[in-house]
């Protein structure tokens, strides 16, 4: 069955950044439809679709919306997570820059469903272009009566505000994000209470990823059954954006039914860089376990990847060819996590640093025979012992290096150095 893009169907259409252009493409019909339904009916439809969060954890969106208390006088909030800092991930940027009204429409439908009158779009500080485009789209939407005191003449009130972050991966973690939004250091909170009950400014809050919310208008217009018909099975439904980077000919964002295999994705991306052989890949961003080439036939969906000991995460697929030193690659990720640990929990603060130092010494030829076991022990001590999932994320790639590529680690230690010196990417290299 040929697959027509859904989330990226408007990319490149002239005028699509304006309300008028978006309307011409059929936009804001879903919001109008939702406003004619009861909030409970909207939540039910999203539940039925099986839509799972696209930010990393894969939690069912409709179920999350259902946790927000319906009968309360408190203000409620929607926070759209546009922090997109997971290494390898660049899909949300595309959605915001190329079709901002699709996101605004998704936010508006979510707010109607949970009874929120304010959305904050928390966007990473580096995404200045996306933030400018969103702000312009929001101004237009106010002018056109889509936002403000009387959304599409329904009497429903909705404000959307873009909030720019300032450079910190941990602000993508939902409670770190809330701390940051409230004006503090982005240090994650203890859960429970969950944000649905005590979230932004102490009030009930839904937090959803950009791509998750962009799916919502399509579920409303085309129906939950249509959505469920796309994907691997009833637990893994809908269209999905995969970000493919690294050693392929055409890195980029590709929209396909959830559950594509790596082999299919590499084909879409024009094949391996310079026709080299695949060595390993990361299916879901820096936090996911690294898999060997032999797993390239797996369906990259939530459950199939979890079964293989990795995860779909943010669907950031990093492809590494036969010239790649996996110790060095993993060290770079470990260094990232060490830099980004917020420092509240000892196992995470200390463990991430020890991991990167251990990998560095192995790569530099000073590894000892006990190091592989040391890494596994550190991984155990960091798993499930810290406040948020960053510690587990840091364990993901590092532990998989030892479990899936033990021979390469041992060879570094045996030889007293890297058996795979870096191959220059550019023909002439950098001049010296």
């Amino acid at each position, binding site marked *: 069955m040929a697959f027509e893009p859904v989330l990226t169907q408007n990319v490149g259409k002239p005028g699509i950044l304006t309300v008028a252009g978006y309307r011409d493409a059929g936009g804001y019909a879903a919001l109008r439809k939702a406003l004619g339904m009861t909030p409970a009916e909207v939540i039910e439809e999203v539940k039925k679709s099986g839509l799972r969060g696209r930010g990393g954890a894969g939690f069912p969106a409709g179920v999350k919306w259902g946790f927000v208390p319906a009968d309360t006088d408190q203000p409620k909030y929607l926070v759209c997570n546009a922090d997109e800092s997971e290494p390898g991930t660049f899909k949300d940027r595309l959605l915001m820059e190329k079709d901002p009204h699709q996101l605004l429409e998704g936010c508006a439908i979510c707010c109607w469903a949970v009874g929120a009158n304010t959305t904050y779009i928390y966007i990473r500080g580096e995404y200045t272009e996306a933030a400018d485009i969103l702000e312009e789209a929001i101004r237009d939407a106010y002018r056109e009566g889509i936002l403000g005191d009387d959304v599409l003449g329904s009497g429903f009130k909705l404000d959307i505000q873009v909030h720019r972050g300032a450079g910190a991966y941990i602000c993508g973690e939902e409670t770190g994000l809330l701390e940051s939004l409230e004006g503090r250091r982005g240090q994650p909170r203890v859960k429970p209470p969950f944000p649905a009950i005590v979230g932004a400014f102490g009030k009930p809050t839904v937090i959803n990823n950009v791509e998750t919310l962009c799916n919502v208008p399509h579920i409303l217009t085309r129906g939950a059954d249509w959505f469920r018909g796309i994907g691997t099975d009833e637990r893994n439904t809908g269209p999905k954006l995969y970000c493919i980077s*690294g050693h392929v000919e055409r890195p980029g964002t590709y929209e396909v039914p959830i559950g594509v295999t790596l082999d299919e994705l590499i084909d879409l991306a024009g094949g391996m860089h310079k026709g080299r052989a695949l060595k390993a890949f990361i299916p879901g961003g820096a936090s996911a376990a690294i898999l060997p080439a032999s797993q390239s036939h797996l369906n990259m969906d939530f459950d199939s990847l979890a079964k293989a000991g990795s995860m779909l995460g943010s669907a950031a697929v990093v492809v590494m060819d036969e010239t790649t030193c996996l110790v060095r690659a993993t060290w*770079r990720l470990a260094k990232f996590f060490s830099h980004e640990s917020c420092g509240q929990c000892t196992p995470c603060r200390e463990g991430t640093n020890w991991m990167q130092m251990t990998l560095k010494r192995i790569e530099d030829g000073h590894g000892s025979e006990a190091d592989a076991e040391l890494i596994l022990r550190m991984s155990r001590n960091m798993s499930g012992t810290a406040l948020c999932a960053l510690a587990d994320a840091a364990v993901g790639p590092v532990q998989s290096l030892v479990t899936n590529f033990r021979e390469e680690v041992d060879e570094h230690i045996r030889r007293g150095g890297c058996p795979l010196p870096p191959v220059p990417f550019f023909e002439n290299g950098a001049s010296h």
Partner: protein
Amino acid sequence: MADAPLPSREELLVGVRERLAPLRDRYPTTEALTIPALHFAQALCGGWLPEAAIDAVAEELQLAPASVYGVVTFYDLFHLSPVGRHRLRVCTNLPCMLRGADEIMAAIRDELGVGEGEVTADGRCSYTHFECLGSCDTAPMMMLDQEYRENLTPDSVRRILKELD
């Protein structure tokens, strides 16, 4: 080594207040304005936050200067010391590394003749490596001031540096 003189305390207070005015009724607390206020203050000070700027933000939002300082130190986009007139943030995370980010860093080091985090003698440039900037499909890449520069090569990055004012 920022070449423009820093704004006075009064100018800072007025400047930050002006820019915050349209945001005030958008949040239920004033503390939520901390990060927006710091962005505004940093822009007024040529890309970094001298103590006076942190004090001005604290005063304007009625927060303790120490807590505002704590916020500043948490985020990579805020700077506590002067930066070059142009700032290069070069992504060296894995997807960029796989496509030659280290060669880009080497070319920049050669061209500017200073180390990471230092400012060139004429105050023109400073550079640092950075974590993933969400543009791995156009790797290797960097952020030049507020702009993304993508699909870099050692040659193109040298050319970009030569053309900077």
